[in-house]
């Protein structure tokens, strides 16, 4: 089976000199759901911004066989890799929900009618058809997240990259999002420490530290190896 995403020896330093990635190797196959774990500032978000060429470091990044070092591949790659950003307010910037969801298809060159049809389908897919004409600002956090997801789905991506998708969501919205994600067939790269989400969806998990992948295994394995699901007992015995 051909990999969807291939990353070899990826290094990246921010313009102010902060090193963020120190040689990352990563492969994603169709049907996988990979969770990225690790402490804050370990390079997870920087890494996922490389997957559709928003950031470009040294090393190889190939998506569906297309090399990201060639800028001509960027439009295709960005349509194939849909990124859901951490704060939906950064992503929903058009005046109405429908226009926002149609933003991607229009930019990827779909004819106007088709773009809006795709947008309506995507809104229906996430159960937000009723909000098509509303302003994004007035939606709840869960609704914003779903509309942002629709904006990504509208271009038929093959890979979904989700950065902390359950932050700001209450438990019912988290559950709705989980069910929605489970139904989507795309391969997924998810940055999240949400235990419920990880146990339900992850086929594999990677642990980032200091800009490198230091461990990989099943979600539970990683969580337990690094002790992230347990609270240390009180030293005095309580």
């Amino acid at each position, binding site marked *: 089976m051909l990999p969807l995403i291939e990353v070899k020896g990826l290094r990246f330093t921010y*313009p*102010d000199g902060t090193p963020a990635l120190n040689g990352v190797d990563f492969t994603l196959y169709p049907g996988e759901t990979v969770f990225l774990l690790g402490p804050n500032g370990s390079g997870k978000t920087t890494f996922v911004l490389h997957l559709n*060429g*928003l*950031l*470009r470091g040294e090393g190889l990044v190939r998506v569906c066989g297309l090399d990201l070092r060639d*800028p001509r591949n960027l439009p295709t790659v960005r349509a194939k890799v849909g990124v859901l950003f951490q704060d939906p307010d950064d992503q929903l*910037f058009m005046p109405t929900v429908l226009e926002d969801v149609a933003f991607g298809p229009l930019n990827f060159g779909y004819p106007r009618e088709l773009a809006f049809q795709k947008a309506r389908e995507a809104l229906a897919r996430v159960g937000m058809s009723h909000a098509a004409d509303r302003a994004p600002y007035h939606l709840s956090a869960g609704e914003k997240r779903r509309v942002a997801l629709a904006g990504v789905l509208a271009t038929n991506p093959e890979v979904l990259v989700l950065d902390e998708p359950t932050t700001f969501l209450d438990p019912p919205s988290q559950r709705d999002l989980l069910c929605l994600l489970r139904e989507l067939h795309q391969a997924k790269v998810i940055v999240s420490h949400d235990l419920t989400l990880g146990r339900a969806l992850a086929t594999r998990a990677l642990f980032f530290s200091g800009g490198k992948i230091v461990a990989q295994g099943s979600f539970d394995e990683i969580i337990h190896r690094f002790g992230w699901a347990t609270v240390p007992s009180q030293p005095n015995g309580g």
Partner: protein
Amino acid sequence: MHVPDGILAPPVWMGLATASAFALGYVGRRLRQQTWQQNIPLMGVMGAFVFAAQMVNFPILPGTSSHLLGSALLTLTLGQPLASMAMTAVLTLQAFIFQDGGVLALGANVFNMAVMGTLVAQWAGRAFGLYKKTWGAVAAGWFSVTIAGALAVAELLASGIRLPSWSVWLALGALALTGIVEGLLTAAILALLERSGLRKLETPIGRQSRIVAVTALLSVVALTAGALIASADPDILETALVKTGLDKLATTLLQSPFGDYQAPIAGPSWLRQVLAGALGIALIVGAALLLARFYTSRKKLPPRCTTSS
């Protein structure tokens, strides 16, 4: 400072709207030559920031409070062209959503705050020291507020509204005070921004451009004062000219477009005042645009700080 509709005389708001449209068209062309697509979210989000920053009140004198106006801060951080566009977007939305400032008067408000306010901030910043120096920031804040406000007063007078002279002095005094607060706040914020590692967008300037900045600033100040005096009371201008012996020159100059200043042109006296004001303002616009073109054509904005493809 936001002039509402129903106050300015038609020649005044029409003239200023035209001037603003030309100035913005010029700025827009310059932005397009650079990476304007990246500038749109910057201009929009920073415009929204100005709105929000204006909500943060702090006390100045007992019983009164003030807030940042923001055109100097935006100019010193984003550069004059982008600051001008962002302030225009802010003023437009304020006119429509908040009814803060009129729709027909929008051209005048844009001229005062988004065009002259930012230009003067840029020149003052450069004239009083490089941007990182506190005095440059204080001066930029002070001039942006004071000049914009004085222009608004001049426009009222040029529209034929008779204001008691003490009220004009009161308004100018209040503006100067607000300007000090704006300047201090702008300097404090810039110092904090610099410490927190925001890479400065403006590069240090040379001696030559500093001379240009000083000249431009001085001529704007002189023309604003001239516009105020000419529209408040043409006679004052007359006396001053006679005293300094410039009357002959002025008469020749004024004779050509408008005939003798003393012998009024046909029409009511307010029309004469409007013409005097319009003349002053036209001079400012012309000088400012020429200087801006002269100055900005030699300088390019450096790239923004984060990488993006």
